[in-house]
């Protein structure tokens, strides 16, 4: 009986190794900032310099965020239906959005 205890312990450790390893990896990613959106998101995109985020919503709105401060810069009433795609273009000077209302807006 005594001889089986280390074996059981070793088997338990082997079973738990992937979970322990995974937990260690997950802890490398930390929440830096958390913002409250005006609605659920249907799409999102970073600006090319990584300082801003545009988030499209199912109600047609697009919210624009400053990543460093976590503050909302603006909310656009871009579409009458769900926003499918947002993209910063021309060195982030313009924002292109596409919605389920069959329109692309620049």
């Amino acid at each position, binding site marked *: 009986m005594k001889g089986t205890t280390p074996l059981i312990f070793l088997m338990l450790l082997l079973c738990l190794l992937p979970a322990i390893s995974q937990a260690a990896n997950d802890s490398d990613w930390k929440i830096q900032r*958390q913002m409250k959106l005006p609605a659920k998101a249907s799409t999102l995109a970073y600006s*090319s310099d990584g300082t801003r985020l545009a988030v499209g919503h199912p109600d047609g709105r697009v919210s624009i965020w400053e990543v460093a401060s976590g503050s909302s810069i603006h909310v656009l009433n871009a579409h009458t239906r769900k926003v499918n795609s947002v993209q910063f273009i021309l060195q982030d000077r313009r924002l292109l959005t596409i919605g389920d209302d069959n329109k692309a807006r620049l």
Partner: protein
Amino acid sequence: MTIIRRGYDWSEQGTIEEVAFSGGVSPDGRWLAAQDPKQAIWLWDLSTLKREQLTEAGKGGTRNITFTADGRHVATAYNTALLINVATKQSIPFAMREDKKTPLKIEQQGNQVAISLGTLQDDDALTHRVIPSRTGSLVALGRGWYGRPAFVDVWDTGSMKRVGRFKAKDIGTLTSFSFDNSLLAAEGAERVTIWRIATGKQAASVKGSGIMQFSPNAMELAVTDENDLIIYALKQ
């Protein structure tokens, strides 16, 4: 109406009608590639808002249309993945099936017909999204049969060979490459999964219920979870 706030000018510069589903802009910001409601892909010149046709109508709705980093191809998926050469308008399909046998087997004995579905192979699965990396050297194909677990194939566009297949519980087909091409993230029902591309090993999974994207210049991942927008950063 012009709205100016915090130094940004959010006035509308133009509207393009008859754009459906999704679209992507070329790296130089000149062209928009997008589908019309009849499911043909067009290129719109964003300075003149005039258009030219890239593919015929009726290929089926696509969830993503994205330019590659060099602007020479449009990556999209109509159940199979395609790279469309913008200049020649020729489509380059990815070689998915190699020499696999069809999973369907039909046998007839007298007036009775038996249809055996067999086992569906991963290489017969549909491709729903094609996401190029920022350098354009890799593309991620979000694949799977409807109602079955999805998986992601990463292809090298130079050699046109698959460099890895990534699977995790409850993942979807939306993916994002880190700016240095070292990591791949995939959406999930409750968590976003992150893999190291070189090793194929899972690096992490973080809380988030779908839409996500890596930052273009930092080890940072934006993830949405219900009404929250969460920015994760890799601890150095």
